[in-house]
């Protein structure tokens, strides 16, 4: 049986690769028409559908790409300004996927770059959409990448929860005025109407709901200036009717929770475990993005896109939920990939 890290076995594998690769390459050239015919027969409809879908996707993406690039640059500048690690500061190597594992039980692909490009075991591998896996074996001119779906893969991740859109209605009575003002606040909009009477909050200066508002400025609608500005008292509800209400920045930052991403094989989606059931974090929403957590012992640097939450499986007691993840990258159709030349400390070989 194998002894991991044995130089004899590594040499044997490399030597066999040297003999076998030319034969494999020749066979690949000869059998390509057969493979193409098979794919033409079995996947034609899928390819046509995918083509239509991708055309729509390209049209949709083109508009948002420019603003996204600008946002990413701003974020990178901010991170570098604060001395925080960014992906832009990590060198990378581009490679092409040249084959996948012929086994039914291993989720690996082979790329055409190896130790000559500086690749080492443990380095994270990405494509344009996001993380796809990590390098597990490195040879001179090729490497093996374990995909995220492999049962042996595990990675610390962050779940960025999307704040729920909430609606809060506050009814206040302005001093010296028979008219009450009701403010209805949602996560994105603010409307002001004129109700009959009644006061539901008596705390001066307190406006429930503003702490969860994502818009930083709440502007009353036109036509509500029934209260003269001079009659309103500062630090009281509705006191500054004619002016804008500014919410302190930072209260709308999305909440984050960490967990461990685990692959479950080819036919099942990866899951995130060990997400704590924190009341502050709230219920994890479907569609919440999942990104790498980073850290000294993590397999990947922080903030690499992995996917989104597709299903939340709640468990009883103090056990946190299990999140099923839809990966951002399409692992069935990999071509060019990027390897970050970032070797986690857990994968480094300790020399005596």
């Amino acid at each position, binding site marked *: 049986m194998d002894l991991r890290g044995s130089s004899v076995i590594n040499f044997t594998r490399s030597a066999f690769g040297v003999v076998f690769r030319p034969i494999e390459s020749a066979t690949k050239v000869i059998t390509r028409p057969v493979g193409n015919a098979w794919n033409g027969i079995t996947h034609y409809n899928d390819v046509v559908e995918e083509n239509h879908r991708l055309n729509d996707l390209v049209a949709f993406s083109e508009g948002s790409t420019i603003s996204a690039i600008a946002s990413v640059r701003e974020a990178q500048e901010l991170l570098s300004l604060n001395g925080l690690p960014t992906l832009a500061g990590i060198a990378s190597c581009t490679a092409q996927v040249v084959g996948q594992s012929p086994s039914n039980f291993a989720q690996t692909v082979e790329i055409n770059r190896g130790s000559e490009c500086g690749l080492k075991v443990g380095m994270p591998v990405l494509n344009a959409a996001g993380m796809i896996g990590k390098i597990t074996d490195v040879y001179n001119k090729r490497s093996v990448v374990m995909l995220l779906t492999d049962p042996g893969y595990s990675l610390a991740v962050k779940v960025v929860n999307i704040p729920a859109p909430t609606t809060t209605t506050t009814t206040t009575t302005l001093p010296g005025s028979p008219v009450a003002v009701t403010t209805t606040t949602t996560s994105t909009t603010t409307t002001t109407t004129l109700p009959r009477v009644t006061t539901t909050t008596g705390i001066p200066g307190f406006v429930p709901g503003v702490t969860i508002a994502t818009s930083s400025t709440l502007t009353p609608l036109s036509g509500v200036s029934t209260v003269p500005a001079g009659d309103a008292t500062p630090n009281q509800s509705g006191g500054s009717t004619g002016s804008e209400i500014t919410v302190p920045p930072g209260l709308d930052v999305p909440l984050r929770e960490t967990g461990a991403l685990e692959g479950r094989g*080819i036919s099942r989606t990866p899951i995130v475990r060990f997400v704590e059931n924190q009341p502050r974090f709230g219920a994890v929403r479907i569609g919440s993005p999942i990104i790498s957590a980073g850290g000294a012992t993590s397999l990947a640097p922080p903030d690499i896109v992995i996917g989104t939450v597709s299903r939340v499986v709640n468990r009883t007691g103090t056990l946190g939920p299990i999140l099923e993840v839809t990966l951002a990258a399409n692992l069935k159709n990999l071509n060019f990939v990027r390897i970050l030349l970032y070797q986690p400390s857990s994968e480094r070989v300790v020399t005596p």
Partner: protein
Amino acid sequence: MIERVLWLAENRYARLVLVGLMVLSLQTTVFNDMRPFGVCLQVMVLLAASSGLARGSDVGAIAGFIIGLMYDLVLTTPLGLCAAVFAIVGYLAGVGQSLVYEPTWWTRMLLGSIASAIGMILLPIASTITGATGILNTRVLFVALIVGLFNAVMSVPAERLCRWALTEQAAVR
């Protein structure tokens, strides 16, 4: 020196290695792309089973070990895992063949299919024993079924190929 090279060329296991290289190249190329129902067809396990069908359990076990070892060298599984499993497959196919009275083409198909399916079940079990997790599930049975069906179709020509490759040295001369 030339005598030694000739002896090596006439050796049946040397021929098996050459045949195995060819089949392995097919395994990693065309059969790697053709995945009916999402299952990668396994012609290497077919070669091991066919060796047992062609030349009996003892030769089948040795041939299976060699074929499995070659397969191990291109996989990321522990070296020796496929070798051990394929040796069992070759041995079982040879034993099965010896139990059949007047074997016919369809009994060979059936035995090749069953031996391949057993190999596809043993492989994840062996992987689990060596520390792999999450691969021993119900999908293993589906994989074994598909591989078994395909290998049944291919077992007759594969058995003829192995019969030729594993011919005794004296018979070649």
